[in-house]
């Protein structure tokens, strides 16, 4: 069993989780104490639920035969869940020598209950039945759609098998949203993993401090990042991601002899382009980690801030813009217009003889614009391919090269999911489609072919 006080050791490892660790250890208790049949560990993302429990069991039970850790996304059928659990409790690992066989085959709940009883009660002559066995189910909210009885039966596993079993559910959804309708699931004991406070966050991120960097200096930086981001995101993982990406840039001027560690204000100023331009894109993963590490060299403080900003935008843009053939871009623009503009106004917008701008004013007078149910907010509506083609031929300036097969272009847009089919059938003529591209993306595409899409959009803001 545990030699030194496990709580203090774990609490050092996980700042801010002392209370939760205390509670868990109390419920785990001595190996042969009865455990509550269900424990519900919940709280927002990145509050250490899985990590704490994983570590706690690793230290609590070195043989690993008293607990099973099962991720409910990974084990997407009850059978996988059952077999994984029994493997763990039986100390069985599928490998080459056993031809990757599981400990036993378990098709359904009855098999599972019987196998558990055989393993823990019968086979050991009742010895193991008194030792608590744990089943930890991570991402437990997934259990709700694995059949109505699974969750209930798991929470009654101890009653159904007669063995001393505690089922620990981990989720970020509250228990109220789990309770099955027939009401047979006994409520588990709740343990709440609260969101970290700022000082706890700083304590945790302090552990990420690179080895040869002064910690106080590092923390000042983390503090600044926290202040910028906590308003839109309180997720610890996101913060750590940003810190890891941006800190090297922040200290770079020190090594390049542009500033000293004492000149925080100056360092922040040099770092400004990253704060404003890069951080948002890193957060949205528009720039991938590897891309950032590879390409951010040019973004050195020695360079002109404008260049820096430009190179960052470039990185994001590369990922963003769609590289499509010239005519295909127009097809997509036509599809976008057909999805969002009312068909009744097509004649006004797209008749070749007159430009759209004059007519637009007339349209405005007829309708109340900017309403809550304008198409921009409702999303794309389905349109007939013929209508899209009509718009296409009207917005394209020069006659289409006869070698271009429009049907094939449409088919490839469907394959790319830029158009989605809204009706069934394999033939492309006569079907209805929707345009699956955002306003920002279509604007970028329009710019690339020098087409002013905003003149043609009805009721957009």
């Amino acid at each position, binding site marked *: 069993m545990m030699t030194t006080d496990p709580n203090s050791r774990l609490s050092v490892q996980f700042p801010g989780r002392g209370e939760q660790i205390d509670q868990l250890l109390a419920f785990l208790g001595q190996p042969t*104490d009865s455990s509550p049949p269900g424990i519900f560990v919940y709280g927002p993302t990145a509050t250490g639920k899985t990590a704490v429990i994983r570590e706690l069991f690793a230290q609590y039970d070195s043989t690993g035969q008293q607990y099973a850790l099962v991720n409910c996304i990974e084990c997407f059928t009850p059978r996988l869940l059952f077999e994984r659990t029994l493997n763990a409790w039986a100390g069985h690992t599928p490998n080459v020598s056993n031809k990757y066989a599981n400990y036993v085959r378990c098709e359904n*709940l009855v098999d599972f209950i019987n196998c558990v009883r055989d393993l823990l009660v019968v086979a050991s002559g009742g010895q193991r039945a008194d030792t608590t066995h744990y089943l930890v189910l991570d991402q437990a909210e997934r259990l709700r759609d694995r059949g109505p009885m699974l969750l209930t039966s798991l929470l009654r596993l101890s009653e159904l098998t007669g063995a001393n079993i505690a089922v620990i559910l981990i989720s*970020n959804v509250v228990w109220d949203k789990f309770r099955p309708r027939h009401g047979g699931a006994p409520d588990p004991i709740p*343990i709440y993993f*609260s969101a970290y406070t700022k000082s706890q966050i700083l304590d945790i991120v302090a552990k990420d401090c690179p080895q040869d960097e002064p910690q106080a200096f590092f923390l000042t930086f983390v503090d600044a990042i926290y202040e910028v981001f906590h*308003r839109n995101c309180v*997720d610890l993982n996101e913060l750590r991601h940003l810190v890891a990406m941006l800190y090297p840039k922040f200290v770079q001027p020190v090594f390049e002899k542009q500033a000293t560690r004492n000149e925080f204000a100056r360092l922040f100023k040099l770092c400004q382009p990253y704060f404003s331009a890069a951080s948002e894109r890193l957060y949205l993963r528009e720039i991938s980690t590897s891309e950032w590490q590879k390409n951010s060299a040019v973004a050195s403080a020695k360079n002109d801030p404008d260049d820096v900003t430009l190179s960052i935008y470039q990185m994001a843009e590369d990922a963003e813009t769609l590289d499509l053939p010239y005519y295909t871009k127009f097809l997509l623009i036509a599809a976008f217009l057909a999805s969002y503009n009312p068909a009744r106004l097509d004649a006004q917008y797209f008749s070749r003889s007159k430009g759209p701008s004059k007519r637009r004013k007339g349209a405005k007078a007829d309708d109340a614009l900017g309403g809550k149910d304008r198409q921009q907010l409702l*999303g794309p509506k389905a349109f007939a391919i013929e209508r899209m083609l009509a718009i296409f031929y009207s917005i394209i300036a020069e006659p289409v090269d006869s070698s271009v097969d429009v049907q094939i272009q449409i088919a490839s847009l469907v394959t790319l999911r830029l158009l989605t089919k809204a009706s*069934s059938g394999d033939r492309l003529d006569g079907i209805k489609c929707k345009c699956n591209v955002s306003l920002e993306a279509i604007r970028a595409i329009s710019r690339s072919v020098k087409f002013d899409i905003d003149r043609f959009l009805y009721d957009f803001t």
Partner: protein
Amino acid sequence: MPARKSLSLQKETAVDINKARQLVLGRLCGRVALPELIGLASPLDAVFSLLYRTVSNDEGNSALLIGPRGSGKSSVISKALSLVAEKRKRENITSKYHIVRLSGFIHTNDKIALRDIARQLLIEQDLENILIGSFADAFTYILNLLRVASVEGEYGQPPVLFILEEFDLLAQHPKQSLLYTLFDIAQSQQTPIAVLGVTARIDVMDLLEKRVKSRFSHRQIHVHYMQSLDDFTSIARAALHLPLSDNINNDNNATFSEIYVSRFNSRVDEILATESVAAYIATVFDLGKDVRQLLRAFVLAASHITIEQPLLQLTDAEASIAKEEASAKFQVISTISLLELCLIISMKSLVQGGSSKYNFEMVYNEYKTFMSRHLMAAATGGTMKVYKKPIALKAFEALVELEVVRPVTTAVSAESNAGGGAFSRNDMLAGSTQGARAPKEYRMVQIMLEPGQIVELMANRIDVPMVIRRWAQQ
């Protein structure tokens, strides 16, 4: 709090204290029966005599045991079964009988049930070939195997007690062949079996098909709601009080000194009489009288029993109660980011504007409109910024993840139905998948909070600017 380790308790060895903890925890966690079943004398009596008559007089019997969740139905049955065994032991009767336990939770169809019945009756034969025929045939075949296996000269067929937990779920199996066969055999009196269905559904009789109902004895044994709060409290007392001696696991007998027992028990009484604890017990009593919920509140206190601290601590009980009572829904969302909060308020104002469902684009539009109006007014001191759409979308998705915001799923198919006319199956499919295929910004959602709750959300936060507060209160 009294001194942690008092002189008078030093007689108690660490081993004994461990046993005290194990005993109390075992009761609280439902693994050890309470020393007495409070207020359950009459159902216990009825169940006992029903089972006993089958076992000793070879009678066929059937009955339903009906009572709310956590009211002690299963406990009554285990107690009755052990009383049957005891009585026969006293009377030196050694004839064999079997017990078969089924539960609607796990025996989800009749085939699974039949296979498990055979397993519980220790029939090793491969059943695949007999499972082809009708349920009744297969079942009779299994019972006949028992007859052959029985070595008793006098009784050809040993009695079998069938305990059917979650009877209402078993009644939902197609054709109810399991229930029909069991009731039929019980009624025909050829084979001594007792069928005891257990359920929390009062209207369970309505679930039975006519032919099944006609073979059922119509005996109902009710476990009633506990009448008085005092009785309810005494369940907690029975679970927490230590006896002078006890055999926890058959072989390991524990004896506790009189002084320890009396000090332990009077501490229990003190705790139960404390205002906060008594109030909690009263709440559970009012909310449905679930004994499991009552006992759960003391697990933490019991698990802290050690040689240094051999008595229960009030603070532990109070801490558990506080955790039970904290409104879980609020806990998780009380710490969401300011942006997420703003999106929630946007949804509130959409609801108040009469929309019952909305998508991200509409929510973002609402948010942007509000923010730009107020940032232009510039009264905010400039600490707020309008977040770009992709950032807001990420925050929005976090809310969906927490299930504070739920997708509206049925809308599309309802619409296409309302469209009228006969739809081919294909059209319906296309229609219903359409909703899922819409880009996520346009999928319709609903907020799962009441406007009042949204306002309340802001009460305990210090980081919410005044404008936002006012916006939420509109």
